[in-house]
């Protein structure tokens, strides 16, 4: 049985999207081994629906903090950067000595695209004196579209197992093992990218038809 407290920051503007689904599974896994975990939505603090002082209070109560976020334009969404800047500038002492890890997810299958997001989290941890435990990258998050991992069959089981292995180390303040990344990585041979693009483009045309035959290639800012 553990006795750690985890604060999971959902870094997506969507409260029931893939980042939330990942946060939820990590929460359930942590609680299953006797720890306490809570999910908060960064967008609520950005929008002023939640008070920033209450977040400081939450941070002081937790041992481990995690950022679970989608990739927007190659790194964290702007409201997540807003939060990290605010925390680093105003709450450095509250963070010192706590542990921090991150999970980034993007729509593209190539997980190397997520590295700048994880680098930002690592550098934030370094700047605030936190103990960086590492990051996990998931490519293909858009295809999950917020589905609960237990509803995804083998794929969901592998992601859950990857998170479970990571948590076993995280809860002992140890680095995320490489095996976790291997388990959550979807391996799509690059040879299949063209057929995949053709399939996705077919879906795009279908969506355009359903939206009333819109011209999705419209150059609206040149009109």
């Amino acid at each position, binding site marked *: 049985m553990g006795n750690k407290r985890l604060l999971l920051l959902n870094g997506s503007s969507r409260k029931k999207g893939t980042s939330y689904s990942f946060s939820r599974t990590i929460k359930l896994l942590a609680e299953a081994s006797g720890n306490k975990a809570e999910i908060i939505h960064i967008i609520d603090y950005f929008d002023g629906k939640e008070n920033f002082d209450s977040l400081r209070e939450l941070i002081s109560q937790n041992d481990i903090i995690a950022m679970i976020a989608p990739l927007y334009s*190659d790194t964290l969404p702007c409201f997540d*950067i807003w939060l990290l800047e605010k925390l680093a500038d105003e709450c450095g002492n509250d963070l010192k000595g706590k542990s921090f890890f991150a999970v980034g997810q993007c729509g593209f299958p190539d997980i190397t695209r997520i*590295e700048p997001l994880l680098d930002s989290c690592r550098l934030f941890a370094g700047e605030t004196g936190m103990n960086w435990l590492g990051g996990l990258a998931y490519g293909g998050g858009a295809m999950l579209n917020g589905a609960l991992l237990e509803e995804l069959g083998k794929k969901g089981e592998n992601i859950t197992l990857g998170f479970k292995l990571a948590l076993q180390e995280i809860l002992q303040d140890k680095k995320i093992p490489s095996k976790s990344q291997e388990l959550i990585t979807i391996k799509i041979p690059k040879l299949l990218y063209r057929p995949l*693009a053709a399939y996705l483009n077919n879906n*795009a045309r279908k969506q*355009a038809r359903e939206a009333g035959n*819109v011209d999705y290639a419209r150059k609206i800012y*040149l009109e």
Partner: protein
Amino acid sequence: MSLVILDAMEAGNGISNKLKEELLQAGKEFSYFELRDMNILPCRSCGACGFKSPGKCVLKDDSHEILRAIARGNTLVMLTNIRFGGYNYTLKKAVDKFMNLCLPSYTVEHEHLLHPNRYGSKFIVGIGVHGGDSKDQENCFKRLVENNAFNLQSEYRTLILKPSEDMENVKQEINSMIREVC
């Protein structure tokens, strides 16, 4: 040839002033956006810019004038303090809207799945201002600019400046950048 400058620096800093000065002196056509004063709402991942309102965010904010300038321009210059090896919040609020510069369909380029450009490729310059000595921060910043350029299938250049840097050096660096991109 027209340049679009996205300036995410604080008011009254020497580097922004020097950049404006040198652009004016070079007689280049440019649009200059001081992002700190602009109302740019965050992307809510609603997906409307894909098919409901193709290429245009449904939120009413100042990002539309920026995207219009980028669509019509050839070169995009982004000036920011480096925060955590990347862009500061002020710049990122604009960059998050760049999805509108791409189509919701897919292409394969250099063995990567990408969204095709809506307005053709641009030359992208990322100018990062960083007070410390961390090569890690600088390298991460360069990597981020490179990734943005790759996604927009564009050429790029990065420039790292120190806030304490001698203004004569800043002038030379900026002039060299202007000569290269114009």
